[in-house]
């Protein structure tokens, strides 16, 4: 019963250690978000192994706090120095920094926190109302459907990568190939271990995440030349909001929140894309579209409401189907698996209390974040001014510790470094590491369900076409593969840049 789950979730959330964990998570998330180059994904990836020794609830509370706060706090950097703290606050710079230059720093920060909290809460409501019914549908799924769904998840992420035409797909295939390393799940024979005993269990998931997200990010930071020392510091109490201003931004916040919540629930459309889409849509429906880009309150509000709207709703595919729809959701999946929790429709049957606990954590994290946004923003601005070498060395040290912690194995640290260097080169080549990570997460699920479906089938591969849901999902996958190719081929023919959107 939902009410039982809600009560169980509430009683778990009411524990002092859980609330403390949320406060710690939000604090860490604020620090990651304001630091240019670091974001929610690298923050959660770095600290997921530190939560290994904690209870499942405390671990999830810390990580949800980081995810929520890091997506918001990127706006503080965007508003104060005109550099987006995270890719999710790129559109925030347009009007946020203009307001600062006009001497309206306090007002800009107040709009940002108000819109972010409203967006975050709308996203949480969307998570509750979408995940529960979708999980009921997912209970009908068998091996063919899960195979098709896994393939679609990888294909969507891969299709959104910039750079070379098929780069996303090539990198996703590389990730899938990595997942075949280790003992074969059906015949128990070691594959592609090259005699290395450390690879018998396969490529460990957490060190791979730490390497691809955190180490590569730290190396990228070394090449970042942006000046973060010129930030103007607001007073301790920086909240400047009244009824008139709230009415003025109401429509933009509404558009941004709803759009963000909807876009977040779609696989692969992350906070970065929602930030721009929300901004553009608010401009289209605004009474004063010409003010956008020149210090518009509405523009700032829409950008911030939309990126935070995606945060909780991005967990819809993860909780309902067990398939992460974004990079940070993939890290949260890793954290859940580390604690023996398998997300998906069965979680709603076996541990509904935990599902509602996750919903409530997002709501509570937004409220804690509101307190941070109203009081003490000046502290976070000071953090923006921290010299980059200190940030780089902190991230690299935490990466080493994080990669080592899960299995207490030095091999995992070397693996994280190797993947980190590879991830850095991939980024510098204008591609993204997200398809590799998603493929590493979903590779096992794809192969196992492919083989399980084939074993259960009397007609061989026809089983995927005989089952209507699997057939429809596979058709989507094929379209996802060919559509960007056609669009890019047309773009090349017209000698214009590719039309793809960048994966954050």
């Amino acid at each position: 019963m939902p009410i039982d789950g809600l009560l169980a979730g509430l009683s778990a959330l009411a524990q002092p250690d859980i609330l403390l964990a949320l406060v710690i998570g939000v604090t860490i998330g604020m620090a990651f978000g304001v630091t240019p180059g670091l974001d929610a994904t690298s923050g959660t990836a770095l600290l997921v192994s530190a939560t290994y020794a904690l209870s499942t609830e405390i671990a999830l509370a810390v990580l949800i706090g980081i995810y929520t706060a890091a997506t918001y706090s990127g706006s503080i950097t965007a508003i104060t120095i005109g550099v987006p703290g995270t890719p999710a606050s790129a559109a925030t710079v347009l009007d946020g920094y203009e307001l600062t230059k006009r001497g309206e720093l306090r007002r800009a920060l107040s709009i940002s926190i108000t819109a972010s909290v409203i967006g975050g809460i709308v996203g949480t409501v969307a998570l509750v109302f979408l995940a529960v019914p979708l999980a009921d549908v997912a209970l009908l799924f068998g091996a063919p459907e899960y195979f098709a769904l896994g393939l679609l998840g990888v294909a969507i992420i891969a299709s959104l990568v910039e750079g070379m035409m098929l780069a996303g797909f090539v990198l996703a295939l590389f990730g899938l190939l990595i997942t075949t390393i280790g003992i074969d799940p059906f015949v128990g024979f070691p594959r592609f271990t090259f005699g290395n005993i450390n690879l018998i269990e396969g490529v460990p998931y957490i060190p791979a995440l730490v390497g691809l997200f955190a180490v590569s990010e730290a190396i990228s930071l070394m090449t970042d030349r942006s000046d973060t020392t010129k930030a103007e510091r607001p007073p301790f109490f920086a909240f400047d909001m009244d009824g008139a201003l709230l009415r003025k931004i109401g429509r933009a916040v509404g558009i941004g929140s709803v759009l963000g919540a909807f876009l977040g629930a779609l696989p692969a459309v992350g906070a970065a894309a929602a930030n721009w889409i929300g901004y553009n849509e608010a401009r289209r429906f605004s009474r004063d579209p010409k003010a956008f880009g020149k210090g518009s309150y509405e523009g700032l509000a829409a950008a911030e409401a939309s990126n935070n709207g995606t945060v909780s709703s991005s967990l819809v595919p993860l909780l309902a189907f067990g398939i992460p729809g974004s990079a940070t959701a993939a890290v949260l999946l890793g954290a859940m698996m580390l604690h023996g929790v398998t997300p998906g429709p069965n979680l709603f049957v076996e541990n509904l209390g935990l599902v509602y606990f996750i919903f409530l954590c997002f709501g509570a994290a937004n409220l804690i974040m509101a307190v941070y946004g109203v009081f003490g923003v000046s502290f976070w601005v000071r953090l923006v001014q921290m010299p980059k070498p200190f940030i780089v060395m902190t991230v690299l040290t935490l990466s080493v510790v994080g990669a080592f912690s899960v299995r207490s194995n030095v091999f995992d640290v070397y693996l994280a470094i190797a993947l980190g260097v590879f991830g850095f080169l991939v980024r510098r080549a204008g591609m993204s590491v997200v398809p590799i990570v998603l493929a590493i997460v979903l590779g096992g699920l794809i192969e196992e369900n492919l083989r399980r479906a084939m074993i259960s089938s009397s007609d061989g591969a026809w089983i995927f076409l005989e089952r209507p849901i699997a057939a429809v999902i596979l058709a989507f996958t094929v379209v996802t593969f060919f559509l960007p190719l056609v669009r890019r081929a047309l773009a090349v023919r017209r000698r214009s840049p590719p039309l793809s959107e960048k994966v954050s």
Partner: protein
Amino acid sequence: MRLRLAHLIYLALLAFAVIFLWQAQGLPGAQSRRDIGPAAFPEWIAVAMIGLILIDAVASRHLVRPTNFSDLGLAAAVAGLLGLSIWLATQFGFFRVLPFALFVGLWLAGSRHHLANVAFSVLLPAVLWLLFDRVLLIPIAGM
């Protein structure tokens, strides 16, 4: 044709796929008539990867950026220094090596505030020791 980083990455991935394809030939066959066996999935993936790399390398030669060799140098330097630090940590202990590694790392990364560097190099290991070794009971000292 100018050397491009994307093509270098593709070359490495091509080698990776070819090695996997070759290794897959030595895997045992399927145990039942319906199972595809342990070799089939990686073989399909490797073949698809080789095919896509070859097509893409030709089709998008105008879309990729030229290689910046300082990126390769930086990546190699970071990997080498990190690898050396980890090896030293396994020989002398993580918390004995970390302060020195941090101090050298900060200096190499461009920080010339020696007092701040020393303070950071002592404080960060102390915080990590307290958090991981004492509070979370994760034995990172035994690296």
